[in-house]
């Protein structure tokens, strides 16, 4: 019989105290691993939210505030960038691409992001990955919407379904743009970033949403519903709108203008967008389709070929825009130029730098968490030490019997220290099992609440190293009772003193 077998059987004989010790260690290991895994995943999903973007430009506020609002959809950007400035900066030399972003609306708690087709072409996340479609395609006109994977799965939305985007943030917007249903034409593949929780609409749709119902519905060709709206509704709508956006001009007037512009815009941009048919025609097609098939019924997405419409409209302003430059060497210079932009106060940030800055701010919390979980592990190991030392006195008879049948003091030492190692190892193993169980349980919540995607992957080198440190500490702890047992066995010999 090997000493290990002996140690195991001896421990089994004292299973109550051994199991308690083992559970303490297991729980502490689980805690440590979970905290570390969440920390790591949070950090990586954090820095993976945006990549390949050289600059993010918004109205002048704080670096972190701009990052939070533009990338994480947290907080509000109080000011915006005028469309003219955007066009101007975009056309500057060295700018490879730009993605306009218009935020501030929501759909059942999910952020609505107005953008154009550049988003699907140029936005990168993680390791410079492009956005991929799990189903469908990008929007090609103002009545189409593309969902992040999580929005689709959570709301059980399907392609072809029509949804209504509300104005303002939050679940309970005071008024809904019931008159502006949009068709889901694309669902993005999961990215583990805030993109998953975002409803993507064309800029033109944001604009339409915010305009007066009458003109909006006229714009998207829906006279029926607009007629149903009472005057008071319309007024209220305007009022809200004015307050929230701080428009001082009369809305009716503005929108009338906009609408006119819109028509003109179409013609102007006809070449640019490669449209060969009239805008109005497109919309009536779309409208018919939408009314034939009511909400919640999934239908196939119409082929985009003859549906191309204006995605941009005539926005006055956007929340921010992402920029890619021809060469990263231009980044600092471009940034300086934008920060000194004459026409309006703008702020350009380098997302990588600001992400790191933000993470550093959270760094203290993460270090405290690590410290706490480390202390918990230490306490559990000290608990094991206490138990081993406490039972040692009761085990002197056992040791004497072993001595009498020929066990050398070093056997006693090995026996005692292997016990600590076995308990620690079993504790670690159980802790790892609990850790995976916990991850499996918490995965959904963490993903939906905090956007941290925990993968049930193998232990990383770092995590294995943590386990190694715990094992080493447990082994060291075992040396103390083993040494005492060693000296007991030397002095007691075979005589049994009780």
């Amino acid at each position, binding site marked *: *019989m*090997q000493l290990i077998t002996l140690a195991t*059987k*001896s421990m*089994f*004989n004292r299973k109550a105290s051994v199991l308690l010790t083992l559970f303490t260690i297991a729980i502490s290991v689980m805690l440590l691993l979970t905290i570390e895994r969440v920390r790591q995943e949070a950090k990586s999903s954090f820095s993976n939210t945006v990549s390949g973007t050289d600059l993010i430009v918004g109205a002048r506020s704080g670096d972190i505030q701009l990052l939070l609002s533009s990338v994480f959809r947290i907080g509000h950007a109080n000011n915006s960038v005028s469309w003219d400035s955007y066009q101007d900066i975009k056309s500057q030399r060295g700018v490879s691409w730009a993605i306009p972003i218009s935020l501030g609306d929501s759909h059942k708690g999910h952020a609505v992001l107005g953008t154009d087709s550049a988003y699907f072409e140029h936005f990168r996340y993680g390791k410079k990955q492009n956005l991929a479609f799990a189903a469908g395609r990008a929007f090609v006109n103002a009545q189409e919407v593309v969902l992040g994977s999580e929005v689709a799965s959570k709301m059980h939305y399907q392609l072809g379904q029509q949804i209504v985007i509300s104005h303002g943030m939050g679940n309970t917007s005071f008024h809904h743009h019931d008159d502006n249903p949009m068709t889901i034409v694309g669902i993005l593949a999961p990215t583990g970033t805030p993109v998953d929780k975002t409803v993507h609409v064309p800029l033109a749709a944001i604009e339409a949403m915010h305009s007066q119902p009458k003109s909006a519905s006229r714009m998207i060709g829906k006279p029926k519903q607009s007629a149903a709206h009472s005057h008071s509704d319309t007024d209220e709508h305007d009022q809200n709108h004015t307050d929230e956006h701080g428009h001082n001009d009369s809305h009716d007037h503005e929108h009338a203008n906009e609408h006119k512009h819109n028509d003109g815009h179409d013609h102007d941009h006809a070449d640019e967008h490669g449209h060969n048919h009239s805008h109005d025609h497109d919309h009536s097609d779309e409208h018919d389709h939408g009314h034939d098939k009511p909400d919640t019924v999934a239908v196939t997405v119409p082929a985009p070929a003859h549906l191309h419409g204006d995605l941009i409209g005539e926005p006055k302003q956007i929340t921010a825009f992402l920029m890619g430059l021809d060469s990263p060497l231009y980044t600092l210079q471009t940034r300086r130029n934008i920060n000194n932009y004459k026409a309006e106060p703008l702020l350009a940030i380098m997302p990588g730098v600001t992400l790191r800055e933000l993470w550093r701010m959270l760094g203290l919390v993460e270090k405290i968490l690590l410290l706490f979980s480390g202390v918990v592990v230490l306490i559990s190991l000290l608990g094991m030490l206490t138990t081993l030392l406490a039972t040692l006195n009761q085990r002197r*008879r*056992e040791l004497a*019997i*072993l*001595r*009498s*049948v*020929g*066990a*050398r*003091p070093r*056997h006693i030492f090995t026996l005692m220290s292997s016990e600590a190692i076995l308990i620690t190892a079993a504790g670690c193993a159980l802790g790892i099992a609990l850790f995976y169980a916990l991850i499996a349980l918490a995965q959904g919540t963490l993903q939906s609440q905090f956007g941290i995607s925990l993968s049930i992957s193998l232990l990383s080198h770092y995590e294995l190293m943590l386990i190694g440190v715990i094992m080493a500490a447990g082994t060291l702890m075992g040396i103390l009772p083993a040494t005492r047992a060693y000296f007991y066995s030397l002095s007691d*010999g*075979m*005589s*049994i003193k009780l």
Partner: protein
Amino acid sequence: MLEINDLIFRWPGQTDATLNIPKLEVAAGERVFLHGPSGSGKSTLLGLLSGVNKPESGSIRLLGKDLAQLSDAARDKFRADHIGTIFQNFNLLPYLSPIENVTLGCHFSRSRTERVKASGNTLTQQGEQLLQQLGLDPSIMARSVAQLSIGQQQRVAAARAFIGQPELIIADEPTSALDADNRNAFIELLFKEASQYGATILFVSHDSSLAAMFDKYLSLSDINEVVQCS
């Protein structure tokens, strides 16, 4: 077999010697009764004989080897190979089965294992055989040690002492927990087992009434020249 000359032993930190034995001789195959009341230095002598402790001066020759000259590790090995021990009671490890208790010592002694193998048995077979020879029903072998009676436990302990045929069997008050009938029966079993291969038995007890069964009677208070306080 066993020869002690001018043995002096003192516990560390004590000024007076615990043992001072000018001469003690035991022949091979002899059954010796050593009378040692408590406090007579009995445990100390057994510790010295089994090589757990080392004498301050003098020699303990066991099977021709002077234990005093051996290193700690060598004495441990010597004990494992050549001495079987039976304690007063609570002899067995409660977490091992009776058979595992019997074969326990073989894991610390290669020569005893080899002697078992030479008989053509596995350790377990040899253990079962010994338990049967000592009058234990095979049905108890599956039982937990804690379920055995004191008498049964002592026989398991005896089997453990005899396995692998060690030359010297030291029995330290093995019968004190048994009643008179069982006591004699147990000693008879020890003799029967020892005579099979000529083992020497050193039986230590405070109960002189048992002495009549033995070849030789020694009293520790006679051979030990240290004046006992009791």
